[in-house]
């Protein structure tokens, strides 16, 4: 019975950990949203890679609301890189903290 109790407690701790990680990721995902010229974009690797590879300084892109937006490539790229690194750095820092927390009771 002692082992069963131990396993139950372990399962509970893992559940709390999984929920905390999912909540953290949701929060970080929301921080990735940036605006440009009235449109909203997700500052992920795809956007950064696409803007990096494009040569023209101005282009049209479809935003998260499916609206075509005129984009200043360099301005959006700079903002996307800033938002991306800010969000992922926060994710890294808080995830490292979360890993060392055995039980959510300790948070």
């Amino acid at each position, binding site marked *: 019975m002692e082992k069963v109790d131990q396993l*139950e407690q372990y399962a509970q701790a893992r559940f709390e950990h999984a929920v905390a990680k999912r909540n953290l990721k949701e929060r970080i995902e929301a921080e990735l949203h940036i605006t440009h010229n*009235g449109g909203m974009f997700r500052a992920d690797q795809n956007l950064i890679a696409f803007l990096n590879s494009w040569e023209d300084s101005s282009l049209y892109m479809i935003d998260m609301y499916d609206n075509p937006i005129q984009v200043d490539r360099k301005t959006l790229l700079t903002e996307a890189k800033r938002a991306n690194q800010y969000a992922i750095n926060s994710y890294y820092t808080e995830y490292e903290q979360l890993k060392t927390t055995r039980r959510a009771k300790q948070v």
Partner: protein
Amino acid sequence: MNNLKLQDEPNKSKGVVMFARNSKLDYMRIAQHNCKLIKQHLQLPVAVITDTRTRDESDTSMFDYVIMDDTEYNNTRVFYLKSEKLATPWLNGSRSDAYTLTPFERTLLLDADYLIMSDRYKTLFDIDQDLSCHYDVLDVTGQNLYKTDQRLSPYTIPMVWATAVVFNKSEFADNVFALMKLVKEHWQYYSALYQFNRKMFRNDFALSIALHILGGYGTEAFRIPWRLPTLTSRARIIDYDERGIKYVYEKQERDYVGRVQQDIHIMDKKSLVDFI
């Protein structure tokens, strides 16, 4: 209804509006607390819409605008808390008047109990959308308790949430709020048409119907692109400090604990009031 007090003249173009009318629950206290959070994280002026009784028994000095609404609505909501059941008059009926009551050109309309702990809503003031709201809820306890709230009822239209709505003074938003009012006035008819329980008026349902009809039928063009984080009324707040809100909830006779430090819609208003 009249705009009783204009406490100063901050930038009128953008701001936050909350409704706070006390019943058995002290909604004004929650709104006061949220006002401080909004000013800290969003740096925007805040207007509160309240009634004479609530205003007279509260300190409203932190709000940039105090707008009076003494309309009577008879709605009752039952909150199921861990050890008790609380039935309280729920004065939510005038939400559809927010369009005419707001002093701002672009407004973030919030439930007072949706605590703002980040600056993420700032982005919604910079986009070319006349209205945005949430289509999905994130149950932060991980139990997915709101999965049945994806539609007004199993075989009808998708549900949106009126907890946080960003809108412009525009023809579209004007019409959406006008239709919400119409839905409220003909609640029985619309409940039969869209097959949901008519017992309690819900702003979420009125907004869902208005957006469904005016938004091009079946589009999701008004979606805020992240989920609405919500702490269910089955969870009890046990700590609240600069690290966020710590809660506990019971599942299969075990207590589960978590902490959130993000914008969060608190359903257990009673335990929130104890901590603010």
